[in-house]
């Protein structure tokens, strides 16, 4: 499978005919993206062009992450066999009934979503049975300003922008291998605290006491500058156990008058949380390098790094990508997402495809060597 990553200014370097082009565009650069689409479509009319809006992008060239708005749009071009993949755009679970899934055939799937909600999590639990694979990875689109534009996340499919939709990219597993892992920088600490009252993504009560009061009794006063950098993520779990594979939710803000905390994702009454503590550098690298074990030769990669990672690590984030770059000879693009879908790198068993926050999720696409 030929592959290359390009930006708006380097289309000339594409020296093969791609069949799929994945593009991430900063929401403020939508016009540039439409112009790019026109150019690409004209040059490669057979190619499916998909993508989603982003807060900022990740490119294959240094400094990899946007420090100065240098990658308004990034593209990954692949020349996959046309009959080895197809797309399904849907907004509700029941639309998945018409999915073109052949019995006895194995698939891999990548999902791009323009919303992050409990509904998405619900769909994620059902998708493996519908598509017939546990290999479902992906990300939630993002925009520059989280609060004001929460409902304007977009996905893009062959010339049209969609809000409140999901795009499922179904790939023939006999021809291509897709693998991924979601790695974060934290470990859960303390006794589980039960969410006894919440609405949407706001937690009012933990263990029947005001939520912020409970958290601060445990952690001391939560520093506003750290909150701003998403430095206090919470682990979320349906039960009191299984914390090693629990996904994280970024803590976005606190309301001291209400004694409430506001997360990046929706939660449910009865769920449990634990506070996260950052692990040391060696453990972080060890977790990151677990991703490398998944990568076959000449993989192309999509990097979905949470906005929480971007905020938390700031310019240090590029060092983690530098490490990936040095260890894996791969072509990649990515963006800072509002949610990542993958296996938790800290989980013992790789069978739960979960919606995460605060992860570095790397999706690797490569030829299936067996075929």
């Amino acid at each position: 499978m030929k592959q290359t990553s390009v930006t708006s200014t380097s289309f000339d370097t594409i020296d093969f005919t791609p069949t799929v082009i994945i593009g991430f565009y900063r929401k403020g650069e939508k016009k540039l993206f439409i112009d790019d689409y026109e150019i690409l479509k004209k040059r490669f009319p057979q190619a499916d062009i998909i993508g989603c809006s982003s807060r900022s992008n990740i490119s294959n060239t240094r400094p990899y992450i946007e420090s100065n708005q240098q990658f308004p749009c990034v593209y990954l071009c692949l020349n996959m066999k046309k009959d080895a993949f197809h797309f399904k755009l849907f907004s509700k679970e029941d639309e998945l009934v018409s999915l073109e899934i052949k019995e006895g055939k194995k698939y891999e799937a990548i999902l791009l979503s323009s919303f992050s909600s409990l509904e998405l999590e619900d769909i994620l639990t059902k998708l493996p049975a519908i598509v017939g694979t546990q290999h479902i990875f992906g990300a939630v689109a993002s925009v520059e300003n989280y609060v004001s534009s929460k409902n304007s996340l977009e996905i893009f499919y062959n010339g049209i922008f969609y809000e409140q939709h999901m795009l499922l990219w179904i790939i023939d597993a006999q021809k291509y291998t897709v693998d991924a892992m979601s790695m974060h920088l934290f470990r859960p600490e303390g006794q589980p605290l039960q969410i006894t009252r919440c609405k949407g993504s706001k937690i009012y009560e933990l263990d029947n006491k005001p939520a912020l009061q409970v958290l601060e009794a445990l952690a001391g006063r939560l520093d506003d500058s750290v909150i701003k950098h998403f430095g206090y993520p919470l682990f979320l779990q349906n039960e009191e156990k299984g914390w090693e594979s629990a996904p994280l939710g970024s803590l976005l803000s606190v309301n001291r008058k209400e004694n409430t905390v506001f997360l990046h994702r929706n939660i449910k009454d009865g769920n449990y949380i634990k506070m996260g503590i950052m692990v040391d550098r060696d453990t972080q690298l060890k977790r990151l390098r677990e991703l490398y074990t998944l990568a076959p030769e000449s993989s192309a990669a999509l990097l979905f790094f949470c906005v929480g990672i971007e905020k938390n690590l700031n310019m240090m984030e590029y060092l983690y990508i530098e490490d990936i770059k040095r260890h894996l000879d791969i072509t990649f693009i990515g963006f800072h997402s509002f949610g990542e879908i993958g296996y938790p790198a800290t989980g013992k068993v790789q069978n739960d495809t979960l919606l995460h926050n605060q992860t570095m999720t790397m999706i690797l696409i490569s030829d299936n060597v067996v075929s």
Partner: protein
Amino acid sequence: MKLETFQREYLISKVREQFNRSTEEATQTIKELEALLLDQDETIIYNLQYKIFINNNSEYTRTLVNFLFESFVYLYETVKSDEEKEVLQIGNRKIFDFLFIESCSYAKQIEKQSITAQNILKNVSSQLNSLLQTQERMIANLSHDMRTSLNAIMGYLNILEDNKSLHGEEKFYLQKAMSGAVSLQALVKDILDLTKLNSGQLEIKKEFFDIDKMLIECIDHIPSIMREEQNIDFQFHSTFMPYRIYGDKIHIMEILINFLTNAFKYTKKGFIDLSMDYTIDEDEISVVFSVADSGIGMTKEQVDGIFSPYSRYEIDEKGLGLGMYISKHLSEKLGGTLNVQSIYKEGSTFSFTYTSRYSPKKLSLEGKHFCFYVEENKMNEYVKEKMHFLETSGVKIKYYNKESELINYLLSTQEDVPDLISIMAEANSYTKFDALIYYLKNNHFFDNTLFIAENMHEYISLKYFDNLYEYCAPLSHYEILLNDINDDVDKVEKLDISVLVIDDMETNLEIFKLFIQKEYPHAKIDLAGGGYEALGMCKVKTYDVVFLDLKMPGMSGFEVIQKLKKHGSFLMPIYAFTADVYKSTYEKTEEYGFTGVLEKPLNPEKLYTILNKIQKIKKT
């Protein structure tokens, strides 16, 4: 702009010196520095930052920063034109901005996060401690209740057995009940040990002790009914050890008793062999204890899982199988190693290796006179070394290996009478010597001599020997026996002690009284069912010793002792009688001024040791 040769050479020498690099490597580094400072090549900055990140070593970072700074200063001072100086300044600013300003702002944020992490860890740790305390309290209560009930069961069963009033079928039932109670007691002990281990409450108390004595005590813990099993040949082999070792005797014993109990439990015929050997390496002694058996053995899978909790339960449900799990953890706590080798259906060997400090054994037997009769087939290296050691400790040894010579000596000697005569003979000879001792004592010969039978290997009913030992008597026993013989002179005076027992459970009081009366028939025993009653009794009477239950309704044992002390009864020895075996309880009793602790279920031997001590104090 390029570096001058002298500048390049100077910087190369600096790199070689500060980073311990070869000339080739240093030259390459300086090329990169040149590109970095003079051409502002960002790739090199990225590489440097990555190196710092991966090394994650503050020393390396500091050296690198110093080097960059010194290089900049050196170059700034040595370049000639203002233009070159400006290039240098721009390059320098870029490096420091990129490399360090970013890192510093990140470090500041990380610092705040780590303060939060510390708070969380501190609070979690205090929550865990409080959980442990609750757990400890729960176990203390559980332990108290279980041990209190066991106290009643074991106490009454012992009394029934001592009375010898049961016969035939009834006696059989009694033995069954005793065996059940002993198992229950062992189980309660295992569960408590396990909980103590898990909650970090197990206390290791190290002291110097004698291994020979400890091994005999271990064997004595195995019920004689098990050891005398017809189809099993139980052997005990030990190397003579003229040293004392430093360690926690009770917990080492626990491991060995567990080895032995398992061996007897899973061996139906053949042999069980307990052995001890040691090696010395300068200041340390390494002792290996082994128990080998010809029992059912284990498969490889069973051996692999033997140290996990409930392992035996998984195999055949005979007990909970906590013993080996506890032994393994105890061994780790003691700093020793456990090893197991087993062949399925052929047998197993469990060994425990313990390394510690040691001190030479010292005996206060100088000038004593011992006579040993050792039949030829009973003579071995252990006995030889033991006699030699006694000799070097100042004991005069007379040794016979022929029966006729010993009898001749016993019948003819008038002077230089031995303090102790030890006989190691064949089973049938002991009976003969027993009759001879009867004759000698009846005629007041050897009145002040102790006769002991050693190395008997089996139980023989002998009436006139002063002490019987299935194996060789531990050296320290010679001292104890000889001291006791002097004490026995005043035996008649021994019995006049007054005891107060305070417990809210009538059964405990009754058992206490029965046990004391059995050994001290003339003792004056008062019983109090609670704290207030006891305080009243202490106001009108002085006791030689008080046994005080700690957990009583109304007024606890701790409150009682406080009040007794307030009222001037502080001189009276007061022992805590408790089923709470927790470390904190022991610490609290010390704090409140208890003389000691007597655990429930009541162990008569321990009770008598206390009463003997009280008796001695009273005499002096």
